[in-house]
């Protein structure tokens, strides 16, 4: 470059420099005002694109947290309802034990019966609990109307068996409330595997006490009928017309057949029968109704008393298995609540990481930016003062 420069070039150069410094200063000022490193995507296109993706992921996490609150609310309500159902069942258990006392008078039984009736109604109300938004807690996904209703034959379930899954963290799903069918219906009778009962027309005082599967490999799921041919003799049938075994009855002694063991007490008469076979299912309301029905018989003869006792025994077993089911249902809800807590932890951890990354991508380093601002400010002032001095330099002034 030659040594010659023109005056307008000198001015132009100073002005260009000042303009560039001013633009930089304005950009820094904008960064400081917004607290963001990236004003528009062009400042760092790749980081800006990533930030858009991370923003979406963060928003999704926030949404998942809100979803989790919804589910937690419903699971909490389920937990409350199930606690109450559990308490009620404990009371039922207690009352059944009381009623099973042979010395109990008719009046006392009546009192127990009416308390059971109240519990029955209370259970029905609990089964029709709502979630606070007008939907029924225990209706599955058909929860727009009350899932449980009393009809002539008992309680009918009109909900469905679908259990919703809700996403509460990326690819983490938590089950919503249990459908009513899995809490109040489908209770296994007996010990959950096999069930036994005295035939309704028995005339003796034989009581079916305990029964259980003692040999799982031998037991093939068949039903057995023990028919007394005399006070101390019995035949065992497996569904066929001919007995498969026969034996002599000794009070209190166990009878074993096909991998099953059962014990009878009392004195059966010839023609009395006891059945034992695979457990069936019954709903909780049916169990209560049977119980109430048994208490309402007002026995007068020994045979009637034995029949009632047999029914109470059977009800006691069903109540216990219902209590077990409640515990299972609460445990399942509890597991979901724990999964919610785990999901919350996962979300929080992800949140911290994502925010950190986003902050690195987009947020301003204040110390650096303020330092830069001061530097640019000084540089602009220097350029201005140089310009002022330069424009004083003119030979014309010396003339």
């Amino acid at each position: 470059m030659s040594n010659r420069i023109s005056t307008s070039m000198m001015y132009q150069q100073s002005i260009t420099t000042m303009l560039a410094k001013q633009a930089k200063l304005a950009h820094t000022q904008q960064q400081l005002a917004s607290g963001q490193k990236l004003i528009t995507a062009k400042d760092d296109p790749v980081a800006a694109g990533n930030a858009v993706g991370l923003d979406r992921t963060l928003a999704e996490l926030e949404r998942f947290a809100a979803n989790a609150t919804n589910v937690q609310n419903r699971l909490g309500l389920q937990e409350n309802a199930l606690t109450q159902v559990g308490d009620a069942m404990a009371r039922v258990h207690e009352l059944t034990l009381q009623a099973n006392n042979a010395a109990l008078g008719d009046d006392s039984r009546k009192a127990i019966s009416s308390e059971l009736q109240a519990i029955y109604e209370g259970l029905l109300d609990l089964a029709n609990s709502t979630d606070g938004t007008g939907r029924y807690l225990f209706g599955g996904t058909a929860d727009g109307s009350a899932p449980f209703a009393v009809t002539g034959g008992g309680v009918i379930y009109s909900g469905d068996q679908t259990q919703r899954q809700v996403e509460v963290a990326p690819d983490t799903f938590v089950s919503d409330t249990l459908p009513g069918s899995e809490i109040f219906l489908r209770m296994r009778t007996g010990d959950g595997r096999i069930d036994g009962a005295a035939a309704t027309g028995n005339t003796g005082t034989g009581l079916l006490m305990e029964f259980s599967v003692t040999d799982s490999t031998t037991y093939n799921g068949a039903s057995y009928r023990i028919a007394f041919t005399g006070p101390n003799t019995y035949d065992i049938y497996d569904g066929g017309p001919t007995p498969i075994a026969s034996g002599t009855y000794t009070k209190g002694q166990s009878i074993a057949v096909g991998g099953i063991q059962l014990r009878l007490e009392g004195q059966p008469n010839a023609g009395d029968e006891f059945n034992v076979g695979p457990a069936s299912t019954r709903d909780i309301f049916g169990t209560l109704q049977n119980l109430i029905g048994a208490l309402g018989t007002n026995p007068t003869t020994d045979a009637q008393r034995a029949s009632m006792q047999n029914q109470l025994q059977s009800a006691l077993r069903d109540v216990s298995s219902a209590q077990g089911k409640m515990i299972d249902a609460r445990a399942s809800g509890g597991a979901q609540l724990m999964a919610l807590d785990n999901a919350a932890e996962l979300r929080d951890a992800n949140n911290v990481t994502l925010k950190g990354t986003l902050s690195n991508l987009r947020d301003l380093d204040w110390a650096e930016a303020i330092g830069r601002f001061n530097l640019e400010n000084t540089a602009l002032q220097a350029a201005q003062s140089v310009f002022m001095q330069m424009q004083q330099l003119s030979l014309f002034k010396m003339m």
Partner: protein
Amino acid sequence: MSNLLATGSSALIAFQRALSTVSHNVANINTPGYSRQRTEFAARDGTSYGYGYQGAGVQIVDIHRMADSLATARLLDSTGELTRLQQMSVMSNRLDSMFSEKATGIAAPWSSFFDSVSALSSSAAGAADRQSMLAQANALVTRFNQMDQQLDKLDGEVNSGITSTVSEVNRLTKEIAALNGRIGSNVANASGDLLDRRDQLISQLVGYTGGTAVQQDGGQMNVFTAGGQPLVVGATASSLVTVADPYRPERLQVALETNGQRVTLDKRALGGQIGGLMEFRSTVLDPAMAELGRVAMSLTETFNAQHRAGMDQYGQMGADFFTAPQPQISKHAGNTGNAVLQPSLGDLSKLDGKNVQLRFDGTNWLASDPNTGTSIPVTGTGTAADPLVVNGVELVLTSGTPATNDRFLLQPTAGAAGAIKVAISDPSRIAAATPVKGNTALGNTGTGKLGTVSVTNAGNANLLNPATIAFTGPNQYTIDGTGPFTYTPGQTITYNGWSVTLDGAPAAGDSFSVGPTGANSSDNGNAKLLSNLDDARALNGGTLTLNGAISGLTTTIGSAARQSDYAAEAQQAIQDQAQATRDSISGVNLDEEAADLMRLQQAYQAASQIIATADTLFQSLLGATRR
């Protein structure tokens, strides 16, 4: 004596003239394009007196215009490129701000919409959540529409920019041609100020169109565009006109009109502001429109497909949630055939949004990229049974026959963002539920457990028919009486367009049924799937998610803005250098002029002294003879 006076007065006159040149320079210090002038002195020829030559003073031989044609040409080159890049940068920056700003970009409403779908999945029957999802969907399509409008507006600005620039160009070419006429073929005779004026006008012209100026026979300047088309030749000016794009009449192109002939100039033939506008349009704006449209179209396609596989609150199968925008096709204005092509979206994963030019060669359809000319594979014949397939778009020849060399422009996704709408207005019609559900008979004695029923083919006509899986033995089952089939625990049973897993050990006599979900269900199975569609890899052959496409859009536009900024900055540096070189030769320096002023003033004073001395000599001669 007279000799002395003549010499003195020649110097006085010369210095006076030189001083007026200095003052002319000072006066034009702020005139753009002014080249400084310098007075050239020469000694007058002397008279021979036998003993030698006696000098006769000074004369001015030339007032020289300090200019270097090479420096001027370099500056001119750089000016055309700089204005082109600056134009690109200005427009790209506007697009960048629009896409980056939360209030105008697509990312925020996009995220809110999918959040509202996720919210629905946690409360599928909630009226408020349903209403909120509809509201967010409307906000999202409104934003798509607004962005498309903004892009259209930018397109309109390119048009009006081209129109106003063309009229300015025509004014300049006429003025340059007129100046060429006045200057004639001999530059040496022309006034420096006139040459400056012409250079200045050429620089302005090149700023609009790019190109070069070539001096013809040492006199007139001819100006050509970057592509070599003549804008000014001698005293004749060509004129530019705007013509409609043959495919899209709403879009303007620039054509050169010489002798009644019109030649369309493409963006490669033009630099400067017009070139910048056209390049912005084809390399930044069009791809942005196409990509935004592609996102809109993919959202419609994937969301609608999933929505149709769900069940609404009325117990009906879901309908389309968004109205689907269709690809656009426009025929070339010069087509002689009457073929009508109907495009529709085929394979979403192959859709890339880029414009495609289709040409009929007499027997086959050929496709190519309209910008680069690269050929693109086409399959099919164009019948409804065997449509033409290009880049994931299917085309059917619905009527007419094409003539050889008929051309069409296919815009697969441009405009889709402007056409997307929400098709549903009743919140209850949002299909959040899985249309079928399973039921385990209450009396089952086995432990068979039915999993969640999922839809594998929403189009199956029997999907909603109730079906029963009945176990005739622990390892045998029938479906609706057909079978028996062998049961393996954990197996998946697929029937009537749904599938379900069955696990555990069902006993003989156990039964499971699958049937329609029904009205007013709070099932969230479909909402769950809908809320995850933004992360489904639906694009680019199944490698890119919709979220990825949104991020990619931001990055692409940001990169375009950054790149044009960098290029413009670099060109500015080149321009500054070229300007400095030109100014170091032609620019006025006030100090230099002040020094010249003093030097000439002193010389003028000295010349005055010569006159005074001559006078003294004359007076002393008169005094001597008076005696």
